[in-house]
């Protein structure tokens, strides 16, 4: 796997110094490597990625709903005529 090269400014986020906002974010549990990835994109690319993720989540929710519905249908006793 290729090693990710960070600029000095990115390293400020990845390896924050104590007392900085980045250190507080890291301590809060924010994965700043994801933030760095985002900051490498243009605003349009960032929103496009968010939009794609949102769309995939919607498809996933629909698939789960559909699977649950099918499960209920198959569990129902068949009507005998």
């Amino acid at each position, binding site marked *: 796997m290729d090693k990710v090269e960070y*600029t000095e*400014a*990115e390293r*400020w*986020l990845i390896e*924050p110094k104590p007392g*900085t*906002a*980045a250190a*507080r*974010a890291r301590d*809060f549990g*924010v*994965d*700043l490597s*994801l*933030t760095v*990835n*985002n*900051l490498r994109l*243009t*605003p*349009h690319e*960032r*929103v*496009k*990625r*968010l*939009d*794609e*993720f*949102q*769309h995939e*989540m*919607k498809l996933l929710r629909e698939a789960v709903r559909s699977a649950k519905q099918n499960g209920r249908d198959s569990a129902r006793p068949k009507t005998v005529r």
Partner: protein
Amino acid sequence: MAEIAQGLKLFADFKVDCVVVGGVAAGARGSSHVTYDLDVCYSRNPANLARLAQALRSVNATLRGAPRDLPFRLDAETLARGLNFTFNTDIGSIDILGEVQGVGDYQECLQDSNVLELFDNSCRVLSLEKLIAAKRSAGRTKDLAAPPELEAILEHRRRSGTTE
């Protein structure tokens, strides 16, 4: 085209004066948090309310979280009587805010925004500084997770001399 893109296109097509705020704005500024709706702060100018109502009707907007039988007519008059509304629409969840807590109304959001080209639309997007103020002011648990990352981005931006 997915939901955010369609929402931004909707407001552009109907020439709605609004500023993108909330999670989509935070995403545009670099946040890695995920959002499921599009929040905009809108101008309460009567002509804009009419365009906004028309835009929302075109995507069959219904009040989110309201009883199905609650009488609600989506027009400029109704929007003028309220302030913040949350909708389900054919193109996803859209929240329209007359006022953003910690920032102010449309004019104040406009002052602290800049134009970003998103999906071929020129969109006004709230500044990073004001997004932090809004999230801090809202004080909801889900909003408290956002400021630490946004503040780190702001710090990074100042340090690296970048604007976006």
